[in-house]
C-alpha cells in the first residue's frame, strides 16, 4: 500500500471537519496548554530577572591589593614618620603597576575596574593619622560601589572627571566634623594647598578613606615622592572592581588571583547569600518551567489521547478493509499535528494578549518594572511542545490500535 500524502490529508481533513466538537476540544486543549505555558513562564521569567537585577549587584564590588611584604622598604618614603605608608584593607600594602587594572578589566566576569591609591599619613600639626584615597572620577561604576558615590554627598559636590590634576578634594563627614572642616575650606596636605569641595557620608565600603581626591593628584602627591616606585612603574596600590553579578563573583576573584599570587581581595561576603538566593530562584524557575512543560504536554495530550481511543472501532474498520498500519498511523499523526499546531497558534495569540494587558506590576509587585514581552524562545518552545505532544498523543494510541488485529479493534465500542 503506497502512502499518498494528498489522500492522507483528504482523510485527515475530513475527520477534523466532520467531528467538529472533538476537533475543537483538542484545539482548545492545546490552546489552553500553550497559553498557560507562555503566560506563566513569561511572568515567572520577569519575576526572576527582576529578582536577579536586585540581588545580582549586592556586594559585587571589592578592592584588589597586595599586602606589604616586610623587606620591601624601598616602597616607603625614607624619611616618613613611622606608621605612614601605602595602606589598603586596614593593612600596609605594596604598590604595583597600573597595568593590572587593564588585565582585571579584561576578565569576562568583571563589569568595571579602575585604579586606586590609598596612603596613610600623619598630620604635621595634630600628629593624627588619616587616609588619602585617590580614584578616577571617570569610572563611576567601580568607584561608587567601593569608595563613595554622589549619592553619599551631605554637602558640596562630588569629584568630577574635570578635577583631574586639580587641588580639590572631598572628605568623610566624621573626619571633617572632627577637624572642623567645611566646604570651601583650603587645607594643606603634604605641603600643597587643597580646596574641600564636598563632604560625603558613605555606607560601609571596602576602600574607604578620610579624604578623597582625583587619582592623578593623589599620585603626584604620594608616588612622586618615591623615585624608586616611579622607576619601577608601581604607581597604584589598589584596583577598585565591580563584578558582573554575584553568581560570577567567585570566578572573577579566582581569575584575578591567577594574575599574581600576591594579589589579595578585600570585599564583603554579602554577595554570597544574594547569589545563593539567585541560584535558588534560578533553579526554581527551571524546575517550575519543566513541571509546567510536562503538565502542558500531558494536558494537551489527554484530550487527544481519549479522542483517538474512542476511534478504535473506526480504526478496526479501516484495518478490516485493508488499510495498512502505516496509513492509519500517519493519518492519526497528521490529524494530531494539525490540531496541535492550530491550538498552538491560537494559544500564542491569547498569551500575547494576556501578557500585554495584565500589568506586570500586579504579578511581580514592583512598580519600577516596565511591561514585558514573550521571548521568542518561548514561542519556539510552545511550537515544539505542541508538535511533540501532538505527535506523541497521536502515535501512542495509533500504534496501540494498529497493533491490534482488526477483529479485536472492531470489538471495541
Amino acid at each position, binding site marked *: 500500500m503506497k502512502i499518498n500524502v494528498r489522500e492522507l490529508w483528504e482523510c485527515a481533513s475530513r475527520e477534523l471537519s466532520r467531528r467538529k466538537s472533538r476537533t475543537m476540544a483538542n484545539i482548545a486543549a492545546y490552546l489552553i496548554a500553550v497559553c498557560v505555558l507562555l503566560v506563566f513562564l513569561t511572568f515567572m521569567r520577569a519575576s526572576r530577572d527582576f529578582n536577579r537585577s536586585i540581588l545580582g549587584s549586592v556586594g559585587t564590588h571589592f578592592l584588589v591589593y597586595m599586602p606589604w611584604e616586610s623587606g620591601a622598604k624601598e616602597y616607603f618614603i625614607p624619611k616618613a614618620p613611622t606608621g605612614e605608608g601605602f595602606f589598603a584593607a586596614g593593612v600596609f600594602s605594596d604598590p604595583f603597576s597600573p597595568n593590572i587594572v587593564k588585565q582585571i578589566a579584561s576578565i569576562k566576569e568583571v563589569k568595571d575596574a579602575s585604579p586606586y591609591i590609598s596612603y596613610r599619613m600623619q598630620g604635621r600639626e595634630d600628629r593624627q593619622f588619616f587616609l588619602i584615597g585617590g580614584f578616577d572620577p571617570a569610572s563611576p561604576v567601580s568607584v561608587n560601589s567601593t569608595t563613595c558615590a554622589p549619592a553619599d554627598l551631605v554637602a558640596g559636590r562630588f569629584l568630577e572627571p574635570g578635577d583631574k590634576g586639580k587641588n580639590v578634594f572631598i572628605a568623610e563627614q566624621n573626619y571633617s566634623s572632627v577637624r572642623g572642616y567645611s566646604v570651601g575650606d583650603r587645607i594643606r596636605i603634604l605641603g600643597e594647598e587643597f580646596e574641600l569641595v564636598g563632604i560625603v557620608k558613605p555606607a560601609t565600603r571596602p576602600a574607604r578613606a578620610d579624604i578623597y581626591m582625583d587619582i592623578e593628584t593623589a599620585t603626584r602627591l604620594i608616588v612622586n615622592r618615591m623615585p624608586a616606585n616611579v622607576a619601577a612603574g608601581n604607581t597604584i596600590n589598589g584596583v577598585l572592581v565591580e563584578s558582573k553579578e554575584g553568581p560570577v563573583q567567585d570566578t572573577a576573584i579566582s581569575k584575578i588571583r591567577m594574575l599574581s599570587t600576591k594579589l589579595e581581595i578585600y570585599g564583603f561576603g554579602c554577595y554570597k547569600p544574594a547569589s545563593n538566593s539567585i541560584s535558588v530562584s534560578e533553579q526554581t524557575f527551571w524546575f517550575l518551567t519543566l513541571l509546567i512543560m510536562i503538565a502542558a504536554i500531558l494536558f494537551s495530550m489527554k484530550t487527544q489521547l481519549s479522542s483517538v481511543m474512542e476511534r478504535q472501532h473506526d480504526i478496526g474498520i479501516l484495518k*478490516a478493509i485493508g*488499510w495498512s498500519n502505516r496509513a492509519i498511523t500517519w493519518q492519526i499523526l497528521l490529524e494530531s499535528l494539525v490540531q496541535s499546531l492550530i491550538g498552538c497558534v491560537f494559544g500564542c495569540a491569547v498569551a500575547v494578549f494576556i501578557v500585554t494587558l495584565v500589568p506586570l506590576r500586579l504579578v511581580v509587585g514592583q512598580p519600577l518594572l516596565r511591561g514585558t514581552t514573550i521571548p521568542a524562545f518561548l514561542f519556539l518552545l510552545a511550537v515544539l511542545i505542541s508538535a511533540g505532544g501532538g505527535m506523541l498523543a497521536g502515535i501512542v494510541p495509533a500504534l496501540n490500535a494498529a497493533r491490534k*488485529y482488526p477483529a479485536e479493534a472492531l470489538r471495541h465500542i
Partner: protein
Amino acid sequence: MDKKEKAVGNIMEVRNLKKNFYLKKKEIQVLKGLDLTVRRGEKVVITGKSGSGKSTLINLLAGLEPPTSGEIVFDGKLLNGLSNNEMSALRHRRTGIIFQNFNLLPSWNACENVEAVLFFSELPRDKRRKRAVELLNGVGLGDRLDNLPAELSMGQQQRVAVARALANEPEIIFADEPTGDVDPETAGEITKILFSWIGQRNTTLVTVTHGELPLGLFDTVYSLRDGILRK
C-alpha cells in the same frame, strides 16, 4: 487433478482450524479443528445457531484475527505466515468483507465509505469517486451519496457496506450474516444485488447465516455445530 489445477481450483483451504477465547481466565473452545475447502467461484454458506462460532470463523477466514492453531491457505499462501502488511495488502486488493452490523465509518458519507477501500490504490481521485458512485447506483443508493450512515436506514447502510465490499473487485467476499439486521424485503434485495455481482464476475462467496438466507442459492452448505463443520 494435478498440482497446478488444484492451485487454480481451490481459492481457500482450511485445515484443523481451532480458536479458543479466554473469558475470565476460563478457556472457551469455539472452533474445535475444522476443515474447509472453497473452490474459486464457489458460493459457500455456513449455517449455525447464535454463538456457534460463525462470526469467529468468518473473521479467521478473512484474516481479521489469527487462529489458535490450524492452517488457512489462501490461493496457495499460508495466512498464518503473512506479515501484518501482507495481510493488509491481501485484504486491500483481493478480499471484500460485509459485516452483520455494517461497520461503516460514522463520519464519512455513503460515497466516502465506499471510496475508503480505494484509498492508497493509486487510483486518481476522480476515478475513485466515479467508481464509488457507480457502485452506489448499482445498489440503488445513487440519491444518497452524501448521507452519513446515521442518516440512512439499516437496509441502506447494509447496501453501502455491500458496495464497499465490491469496490476493489475482490476475488472472494466474506459475509457475516449480511442480511441478519434487515427486514426480509431488504434482505431479498441485498441478496439479489450480491448474487448478481458475483455471478457476473465469478467471485467466490463465503457467508455465514443463522438461516435467513435462501440456501438454494449456494453451491455448498455447511453447518457449524459444536465447533465442527459438517456438510
